[in-house]
């Protein structure tokens, strides 16, 4: 089996850098050599960071800065550190890109007019990182590649050496390799370069391109371009989707909802303010509660519309926790808001205003906490012959116009096709509404000549008496083809409770002497009679 090579898996390298940039880069790198040697001299004598002057053309040309975390933190703190890096970067430029899990690139072109030369930009970025207490290095350079390599080469105390003296191994992180490439393939060109005695970027950059291409293929050329400081792709900033995360470690555990509401308020107020500044709303809220038993209680609330009112969000979280309480006291609270473009509402003078999504969310959450989540919503008819077949969906009256047609189609399927099973099925009782008994209500029915003549029940509130009119029977059955349904359909009560299982029954519409008109049915599997509902 042949292993795909780098050339097979990658397209040709686009030439994104013009000749003028190459010349300018060469000039920059030459200055970089002189500057590095001079910096080392200055530092050796004075112990201070030297101030360098830069040519005016660099103040107006492309400039990129790379912020790189010195040490890779743990998974928990990596997210926080990255957020801080992004925050610092966004304070300087709106064009920001997360280059890797510990690197953030930002486009600082044109910032020279505001701040000064690149060295000054670098110093201000370093100061901002120190203020934010982030252990990260900074490098400013005309290309992303140089900025990333220099940020990588810099350590906590030492500036990177001259570009040409840097190790070739620094390019490993910068290569955009296809995922299908295994580790051996990834390391192969570096092993080859090591055998050739090529250890620095300067040596790699000086190799003849044609010979390098004939020996290392397309990847060799790509490495050489990186060694010359050229970018493999233009700078594409990340979409402006900052993360809205709030986290609070509590001094002592909280095991009640009321004190937790104050914590939520403290976290949600700044998050909502940040959302408002970004002209965004929260489409979803993720709540992570680290408990004292080291478990994490996670709840995700999908909101019907983007909203950012902290009081509404807090109420929704509290109501949700009321329904789904954590198993232990809470140690750490983390809230993440999923941002979405804000809602634009155009009210109509002619149509009546519907409840706002915030109101509906709160109301639905309150009702769900009161009666249960599955018992609140809008009914939807399903295309089934099963008696009382329906589903519940989230109540969203905005989508009603679109859903009306679908609902009508479903309704036609359920009512028109299911014959006697529908509420107003084959008997054509279009002017009557059935009040269904969803709990199993057994009745005693006397039958004469194959026709029910009397209904009795020991249960209070169930109509009884002599049957004065009867229509039927309409036989209905289903689910018998499915073993699972058959197994569940042990009794009609079970079917009524969970809406599943096989059914096989004879239905009658009967008028009782007391005036009530009911639908009763005989379950043919258990040979028992039940009350389906009362026409009202």
């Amino acid at each position, binding site marked *: 089996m042949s292993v795909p090579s780098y050339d097979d898996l990658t397209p040709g390298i686009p030439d994104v850098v013009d000749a003028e940039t190459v010349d300018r880069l060469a000039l920059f790198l030459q200055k970089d050599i002189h500057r590095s040697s001079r910096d080392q001299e200055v530092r050796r004598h004075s112990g201070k960071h030297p101030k360098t002057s830069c040519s005016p053309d660099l103040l107006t040309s492309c400039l990129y800065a790379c912020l790189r975390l010195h040490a890779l933190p743990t998974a928990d703190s990596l997210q926080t550190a990255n957020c801080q890096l992004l925050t610092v970067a966004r304070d300087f430029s709106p064009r920001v890109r997360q280059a890797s899990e510990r690197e953030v690139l930002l486009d600082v072109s044109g910032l020279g007019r505001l701040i000064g030369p690149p060295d000054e930009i670098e110093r201000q970025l370093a100061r901002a990182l120190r203020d934010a207490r982030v252990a990260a290095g900074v490098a400013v350079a005309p290309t992303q590649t140089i900025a990333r390599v220099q940020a990588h080469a810099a350590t906590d105390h030492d500036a990177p050496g001259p570009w040409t003296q840097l190790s070739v191994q620094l390019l490993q992180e910068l290569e955009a390799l296809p995922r299908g490439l295994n580790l051996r393939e990834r390391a192969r060109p570096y092993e080859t370069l090591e055998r050739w005695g090529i250890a620095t970027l300067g040596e790699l950059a000086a190799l003849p391109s044609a010979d390098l291409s004939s020996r290392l293929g397309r990847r060799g050329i790509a490495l050489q371009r990186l060694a010359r400081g050229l970018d493999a792709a233009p700078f594409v900033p990340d979409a402006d989707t900052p993360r809205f995360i709030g986290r609070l470690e509590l001094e002592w555990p909280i095991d009640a909802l009321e004190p937790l509401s104050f914590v939520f308020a403290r976290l949600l107020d700044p998050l909502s303010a940040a959302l408002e500044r970004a002209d965004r709303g929260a489409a979803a809220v993720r709540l992570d509660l680290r408990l004292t038993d080291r478990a994490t209680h996670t709840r995700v609330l999908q909101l019907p519309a983007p909203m950012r009112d902290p009081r509404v969000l807090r109420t929704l979280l509290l109501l949700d926790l009321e329904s789904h309480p954590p198993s232990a006291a809470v140690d750490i609270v983390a809230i993440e808001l999923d941002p979405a473009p804000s809602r634009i509402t155009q009210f109509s003078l002619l149509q*009546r*205003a*519907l*409840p*706002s999504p915030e*109101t509906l969310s*709160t*109301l639905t959450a309150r*009702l769900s906490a*009161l*009666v249960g989540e599955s*018992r*609140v*919503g*809008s*009914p*939807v*008819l399903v295309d089934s012959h099963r008696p*009382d077949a*329906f589903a519940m*969906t989230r*109540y*969203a*009256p905005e*989508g*009603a116009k679109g*859903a*009306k047609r679908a*609902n009508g189609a479903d*309704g036609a399927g359920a*009512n028109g096709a299911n014959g006697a099973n*529908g*509420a*107003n099925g084959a*008997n*054509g*009782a*279009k*002017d*009557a*509404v*059935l*009040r*269904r008994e*969803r709990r199993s209500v057994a009745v005693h029915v006397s039958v004469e000549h194959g026709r029910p003549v009397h209904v009795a029940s020991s249960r209070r*509130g169930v*109509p009884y008496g002599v049957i004065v*009119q009867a*229509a*039927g*029977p309409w036989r209905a059955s289903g689910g018998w083809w499915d073993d699972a349904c058959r197994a569940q359909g042990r009794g009609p009560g079970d079917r009524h409770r969970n809406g599943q299982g096989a059914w096989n029954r004879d239905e009658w*519409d009967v*008028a009782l002497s007391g*005036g*009530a*008109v009911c639908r009763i049915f005989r379950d043919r599997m258990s040979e028992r009679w039940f009350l389906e*509902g*009362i*026409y*009202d």
Partner: protein
Amino acid sequence: MRAALESLLRARKLDVTLAPLGPDGELTGPAYDAARVAQTGTPALDAALGGGFRRGHLSDVAGAPSSGRTTIVVRAIAAATARGDAAALVDACDTFDPASAAAQGVDLPHLLWVRGTGDAAQAVKAYSLILQAGGFGLVVLDLAGAAPAAVRQLPATTWMRLARIVEGSETAALLVGADRIARSAGGATIACETIAAGWQGTAHRARVFTGLAPAPRLIGGRRTEGGGRNADAGSGAKPPKW
């Protein structure tokens, strides 16, 4: 003087008591603004109610099983959803049938259905939450399946509180029960009586049930079709007065 009084009543949202009167003091037109009522979907009832259930007031529908009370309510919900109102139904005993409602024209996505567990107090609490939220055109509390004793055990102030919540809002609140429950001063009470069912065919195998034709009777203090006002002619238990 009269104009000043009328403007003061309108400012206090008490203008519903104003009725256009002729020179001899007789009623000359509808007493209520069409925008302040919610049509019931039953033309005869709309005519009797002066356009429909009044918004901002609590009305009730009472009747025995198979008296057509649910049909009236479902038609009112259908009318509400047809005109774009949001409607809510608190179904205390979970007896609502979506298929029947869809056949009556209810736009189901516009209906918030709260399926109760048979607990009247819980249903009243859910009803109160919906009324407090506001924004609904019609909110119905169906207590017809609840035990009358459980309904009677609810404090009388419950209904007064509900009437206060809905007062001045754009919501028409409706209670449904086997007996008359309560209504606010501007609301209506509709009594449904057991009626003969419609059947077609002779032999039971060929016979079909064609439905009920509800004949509601207005016994609240609302304007009737003829322009007068009915006295409270109900024979059952009277609703609490406040």
